[in-house]
């Protein structure tokens, strides 16, 4: 009888309305787990580690303040020029809000969201959090749900550039843990610790200038033709329970 009920549950999950309700409940449990995980993480972090993290954040805040001033000036100039030209840009991108319903183990590095093909999500779409940080890329799509491969997954490969440049300078891939590795950087590239790494837009489904992270070290070996850099994301993937899927409205893709 128990086995029969389990089989019934498995069959019910294939029905869209039932799956929607189950997804809603899963998201609620995931939010509870996320809050618990954040609290546990804070309890387990040592004072020395917190002090070091605070010092790093203060340094970044100081350099970010300078960048903000420069960007504000650039934004004002761009706005004025656009207004003078009377130019209206259609981005061709649709934003779809989605809830995370399931997280895989850290070594799998995927999450499931409650939006799928029926909602306009397609494989290869960018998934962002916090107004422009790349969270992952849609890997597999079903009718009412999708699986997102996180940016720090070992299987993820993202063409990237340094903020402020248009040229693709490297390929960002995940490695053990949450750090990212940027490979195939030409030796003449002006890259330094603290540089902000963004998507380059070379992959037509990934919009440009989505933030991947900050360069923490640049590796150069004498015999190697390219540089490598380690990149630290500016967010913790476990802290987010809601994401935005950026779906490109280009039927040729």
């Amino acid at each position, binding site marked *: *009888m*128990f*086995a*029969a*009920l*389990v089989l019934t*549950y*498995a069959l019910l999950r294939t029905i869209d309305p039932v799956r929607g309700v189950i997804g809603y*409940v*899963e*998201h609620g*449990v*995931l939010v*509870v*787990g*996320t809050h*618990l*995980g954040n609290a*546990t*993480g804070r309890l*387990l972090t040592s004072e020395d580690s917190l002090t070091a993290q605070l010092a790093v954040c203060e340094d970044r805040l100081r350099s970010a303040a300078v960048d903000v001033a420069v960007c504000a000036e650039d934004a004002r100039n761009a706005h004025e020029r656009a207004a003078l030209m009377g130019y209206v840009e259609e981005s061709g991108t649709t934003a779809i809000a989605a809830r995370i*319903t*399931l*997280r*895989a*183990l*850290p*070594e*799998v590095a*995927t999450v*499931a969201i409650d939006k799928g093909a029926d909602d306009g999500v397609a494989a290869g779409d960018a998934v962002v959090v916090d107004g422009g940080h790349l969270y992952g890329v849609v890997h597999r799509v079903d009718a009412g749900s999708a*699986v997102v491969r996180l940016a720090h997954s*070992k299987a993820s490969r993202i063409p990237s550039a340094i903020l402020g440049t248009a040229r693709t300078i490297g390929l960002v891939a995940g490695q*053990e843990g949450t750090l990212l590795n940027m490979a195939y950087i030409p030796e003449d590239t002006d890259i330094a610790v603290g540089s902000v790494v963004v998507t380059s837009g070379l992959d037509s489904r990934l919009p440009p200038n989505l933030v991947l992270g900050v360069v923490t070290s640049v590796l150069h070996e004498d015999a190697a033709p390219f540089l490598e850099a380690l990149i630290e994301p500016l967010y913790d993937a*476990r802290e987010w329970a809601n994401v935005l899927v950026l779906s490109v409205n280009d039927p040729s893709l």
Partner: protein
Amino acid sequence: MTRALLLSIGLFISLLVAASAVTSLPFPFVYTPIITITGLLVLNRVGIAEGAVWLIAGGFFLTAAGSNPHALLENAIVAGLGALLTTRVFATRSAYALLGLGVATGVSAGAAVLIVGGMRNLTLGLPLIAEDAAARAAWTLILLLAGLYAGFASVVMLRQRLQKFFVVR
């Protein structure tokens, strides 16, 4: 019928916690094997058939959902070995029998996952970070035993409370 319904609800709640809540926790708690813990408790306290169905169904759902690709393999080994050991070795309902079951099945399942990882490394060239894999297996075993003991204590306490409340002497 009532027992089957309660077991089904219990399995559903365990799957929710395993796939949506536990995976949001930091290391090492993210590797807490909720389905294995609850499945062994059901196997020890309720029955072998119910426990086996719980473990295999839970492992199947976790693997199919992509939450843990090794869940089906681990739980199938736990179910098979657990059923055998419960009838031959750990036949009592004591905490020692439950912990013994946990050690035997946990070590076997962990070893199987490491062997599969090693075979994938040899045949497909997929990376295997031995230290990380061994650390994950060790933490999974520790959390399994801790969860079994906590579950056993909770079940015994709940049973006593319910008996005290409902049974009129």
